[in-house]
């Protein structure tokens, strides 16, 4: 295919279930002997980056806030530096403190992980200005994609399909798109500053609410509008660029199982997607990567409408949470590829995509409470294992889960020769997984894995939340259980004329799912 810079080659027949492509786990030859990597992140991705650096013989520096003293990533790194108080703004989001930590430890390179400063062009520029290696794309291509409206323009100019949209928002041109429309923040992400408008009368309030939410979240209240596609699926192409116009697409991931606009389960390849459509998405992703001379790993996201048409959504200029499933079907180590490309290395040869991989995110959230966060301490953690299972955790048993940071605790990945086998292995893994001390998404994901609609493939991005809420216990059942409990706890039935004791019984955790 034209978009690949390197010829295809046959798969490595010796690869095992969680096989590794042995051609790509080395740094460019000759390697840069002086690389010392500061990982400007925490949790799962910090652990993940440190592990790859170790396999490559690169020394690592972890950073941590007061709230993360003794956290798993600080224990795995060669060195660990405290960078400030718990709140992210004074630690993981403070570029100056991160650069000071790099200077203090003699680090020569910075890997940003995902989240925090990973998509901030100014931070990348500051890292480069300090004479350090930035493991990511150039500040210019980051900035081009961070402005979602500009990214749309760039993609459109390169010929990628877009849904109808407007930038200079006024009620007239928004309504001219045809309802429903979705209002989005230009500086956006994570569903914040996003509003769906179905009726003309909702428009004014939606524009105002989205602008103030975007201002609060990003310090930038600018908006754009797009025609709203529903039910839509969210699919994306894992891409690599060499910064010189070379591009490589590594298959398409399905990421439609979401809550709050954030992914909870991903798989690759996309169930039911024709090879022709997957190839079209890959070609579009490569066009964009080549068009902005992108360097490193990035993800080009698309919406897939019910009629099978795709449209460009945005590009994430960093490693993603779900990169691991692409690693399972390609045999690549994408963190190693990031490092190789940052050091000026060549793109890997195009690997064959083999089998099917799935990831579920184990987050400290309570699905019974609308996925409300559940911080605390992990009092028990038993990792799943077995053929085709990979478990990437950011915490260990006994660790505190601060409320200050993301709720992701761990990722369970399952690989098999077919989607059915990957699902079967994932079910087994989730049965084996034990997490106590905080509520997690494991139970609801277990239930998703046996749901007929999910098994058929093709659920949309707004499927999970109503599905989960419909499976929460009914008020009648809650009431009956509360009654049973109250009585059994020995509260005697009140005698006539006397006030009975009141027992307040919020439900802490709600047993098995469903």
């Amino acid at each position, binding site marked *: 295919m034209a978009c690949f810079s390197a010829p295809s080659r046959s798969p490595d027949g010796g690869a095992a279930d969680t096989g590794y492509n042995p051609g790509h786990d080395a740094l460019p030859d000759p390697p840069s002997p002086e690389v010392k990597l500061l990982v400007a992140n925490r949790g799962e991705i910090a652990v993940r980056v440190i592990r790859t650096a170790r396999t490559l013989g690169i020394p690592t520096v972890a950073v941590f806030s007061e709230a993360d003293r003794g956290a798993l990533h600080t224990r795995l790194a060669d060195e660990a530096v405290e960078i400030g108080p718990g709140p992210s703004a004074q630690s993981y989001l403070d570029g100056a403190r991160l650069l000071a930590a790099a200077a203090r430890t003699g680090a020569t390179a910075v890997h940003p992980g995902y989240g925090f400063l990973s998509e901030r062009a100014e931070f990348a520029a500051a890292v480069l200005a300090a004479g350090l290696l930035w493991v990511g794309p150039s500040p210019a291509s980051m900035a081009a994609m961070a402005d979602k409206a500009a990214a749309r323009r760039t993609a459109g100019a390169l010929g990628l399909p877009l849904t109808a949209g407007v930038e200079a928002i006024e009620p007239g041109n928004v309504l001219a798109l045809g309802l429903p429309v979705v209002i989005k923040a230009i500086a956006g992400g994570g569903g914040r500053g996003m509003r769906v408008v179905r009726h003309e009368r909702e428009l004014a309030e939606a524009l105002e609410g989205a602008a103030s939410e975007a201002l609060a979240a990003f310090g930038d209240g600018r908006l754009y509008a797009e025609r709203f596609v529903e039910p839509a699926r969210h699919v994306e192409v894992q891409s690599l660029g060499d910064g010189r116009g070379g591009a490589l697409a590594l298959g398409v991931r399905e990421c439609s199982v979401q809550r709050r606009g954030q992914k909870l389960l991903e798989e690759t390849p996309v169930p039911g997607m024709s090879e022709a459509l997957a190839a079209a998405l890959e070609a579009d992703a490569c066009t964009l990567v080549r068009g902005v001379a992108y360097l490193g790993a990035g993800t080009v996201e698309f919406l897939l409408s019910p009629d099978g048409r795709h449209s460009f959504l945005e590009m994430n200029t960093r490693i993603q949470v779900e990169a691991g499933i692409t690693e399972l079907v390609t045999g690549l180590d994408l963190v190693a590829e990031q490092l190789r490309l940052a050091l000026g290395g060549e793109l890997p040869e195009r690997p064959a995509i083999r089998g099917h991989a799935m990831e579920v995110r184990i987050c400290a959230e309570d699905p019974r409470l609308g996925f409300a966060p559940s911080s605390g301490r992990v009092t028990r953690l038993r990792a799943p294992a077995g053929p085709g299972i990979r478990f990437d955790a950011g915490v260990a048993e006994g660790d505190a889960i601060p409320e200050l*940071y993301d709720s992701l605790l761990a990722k369970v990945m399952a690989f098999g020769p077919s989607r059915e086998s990957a699902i079967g292995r994932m079910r087994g893994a989730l049965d084996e997984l034990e997490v106590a001390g905080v509520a997690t998404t494991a139970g609801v994901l277990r239930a998703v894995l046996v749901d007929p609609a999910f098994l058929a493939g093709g659920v949309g991005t707004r499927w999970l939340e109503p599905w989960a809420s419909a499976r929460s216990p009914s008020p009648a059942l809650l009431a009956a259980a509360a009654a049973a409990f109250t009585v059994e706890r020995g509260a005697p039935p009140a005698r006539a004329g006397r006030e009975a004791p009141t027992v307040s019984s*919020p439900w802490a955790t709600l*047993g098995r799912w469903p």
Partner: protein
Amino acid sequence: MAGELVTSRVVAGGVEVTVGDRVVHVAVSRRADGVLLVNGQAAEVEADAVTLGGDRLDVQVLGERGAAGTGGNAGPGLSSPTPATVARVLVAVGDEVEAGQALLVVVAMKTELTLVAPRAGRVTAIHAAPLQSVRAGVPLVELSA
């Protein structure tokens, strides 16, 4: 129905249970063999769980209103259901608020939770300011009776 506070009160002939804004009267009795009957169904009560009609619910009885430290239990109300940081206070002392009106927004694990008034009333006290860390279950806004 997720996230609702369930309060039960023993009354003659059974238990009066409030689920969210609904009050449900549940008949509770004991069979001759000692089995607890809830609306005619046999219920099994363990140390911290109730099994009823094939469904099992883990239950925790807290003390009086405002019990703290149980993270993620009660739905948004006058206190945060989970340790959090106050993002925005949307009302002031003296404001008349309607049931369901947003009172303040807290952030936990990068997720915004909006705490709403469980009933109409006047705001008599606010124990929250932006960037303040709050524990679960600690009253943040007080309403007149």
